[in-house]
């Protein structure tokens, strides 16, 4: 394994971990809202969160590229006011990953909230606790197992995500070339031994990280069920 691939792995880890953390932070309130809000049109919103999945990733990536382009509203705003460009940058692939991973985090979390007995929330309210205290002291700790599912799915998906990232990030070594793209590259080049080796490394690292994530879950269950 050469140092290039090592850099690539570091970048992949950075992307996957950032994506997972950011998604966790935004999906908890989204899942909470989707579960408890009395808003009538929740099914369409739930469906909408899944929509980035139904387009082929490269096509999704293409649309993002178009959105990020300085010729269009978002891109020109970023360019002029924030003096930044998202296409072919780490921010860009981070945003793409977040979008692509959203359903994998929101869905299990929402499912977790909605399978909690409503008496937990009621009991906390009648003890005079605010929605916020109820949320983070009662509700979230009781859906740990759903959160683990969301984290594992998001993390694994982000490691393997590749179409969107390739399109938005453009395979630039050290900046946007993540491990999956590097492996893809080697396969395309018919360099199978290198591809196998890289795949194996990625596989083993991901495997142990996932085992770790799932073990946390197991320990949690032993404590409560």
């Amino acid at each position, binding site marked *: 394994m050469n140092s290039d691939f090592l850099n690539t792995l570091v970048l992949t880890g950075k992307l996957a971990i950032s994506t997972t953390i950011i998604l966790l932070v935004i999906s908890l309130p989204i899942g909470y809202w989707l579960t408890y809000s009395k808003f009538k049109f929740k099914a369409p919103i739930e469906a909408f969160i899944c929509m980035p999945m139904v387009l082929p990733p490269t096509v999704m990536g293409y649309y993002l590229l178009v959105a990020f382009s300085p010729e269009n509203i978002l891109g020109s705003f970023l360019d002029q006011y924030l003096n930044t460009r998202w296409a072919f940058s780490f921010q860009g692939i981070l945003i793409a990953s977040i979008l692509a991973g959203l359903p994998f985090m929101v869905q299990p979390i929402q499912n977790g909230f909605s399978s909690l*007995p409503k*008496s*937990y929330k*009621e*009991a*906390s*309210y*009648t*003890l*005079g*606790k*605010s*929605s916020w205290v109820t949320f983070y*002291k*009662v509700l979230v*700790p*009781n859906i*740990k197992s759903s959160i683990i599912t969301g984290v594992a799915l998001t993390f694994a998906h982000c490691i393997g995500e590749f179409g969107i990232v390739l399109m938005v990030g453009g395979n630039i070594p050290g900046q946007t070339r993540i491990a999956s793209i590097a492996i893809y590259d080697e396969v395309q080049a018919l360099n199978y031994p290198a591809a196998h080796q890289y795949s194996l490394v990625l596989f083993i690292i991901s495997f142990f990280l996932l085992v770790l994530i799932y073990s946390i879950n197991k320990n949690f269950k032993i*404590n*409560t*069920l």
Partner: protein
Amino acid sequence: MIQINLEYSFLTPNGKKNLSINTEIPEKEIIGLSGPSGAGKTTFLRILAGLETPERGKIKVGKQVFFDSEKKMNVPPQKRKLGFMFQDYALFPNMNVEQNIDFGRSHKHNPELTHRLLKIMDLQNLRKQRIHQLSGGQKQRVALARALATESSLFLLDEPLSALDLPMRTKLQEEILKIYESLQPTIFFVSHDKDEIHKLSTYILQFNNDKVELLKK
């Protein structure tokens, strides 16, 4: 004075069922709720707590209006400042016994209270135990302690002692009376035990399937 005028109805598979309560009850009393299964005792407590919304009516506790359908007022449960003990306990599985009781405490500066309640309930040895590791009666005592820990001026206790053996039950009746004497709260409690109602309450709210009556003891 606690002023209660309310109309509430639940949809059941055999059509609507109505609960209509109109009464005035002095504050700082212990009111025993009694009546057949399904008469609406729990529902009434849930309405007082703000967990169910009546169709019509007005609920006023002292100077505070909890609910007024005409003025479209409905104070949320968090703001009603009460201690509710659920019939099915509703303890938090992510917390142990002590943490559950602590969670009920409204005053940050009073860890003493948790210890006192643990002692009263004879739960000191189970302090660190998880909820799923408790027996039925132990759960009931944790739920009661958690509600009492709020030190509020209004307690709503739904069958607080039903799963306890007689000695424990008698002891906790005494403790409830002690708390009543020291804090002077208003206490609503549901019980199916004639003696218990007789011993604790100063008023009785009798639920029958068609009407609800207040009886002075």
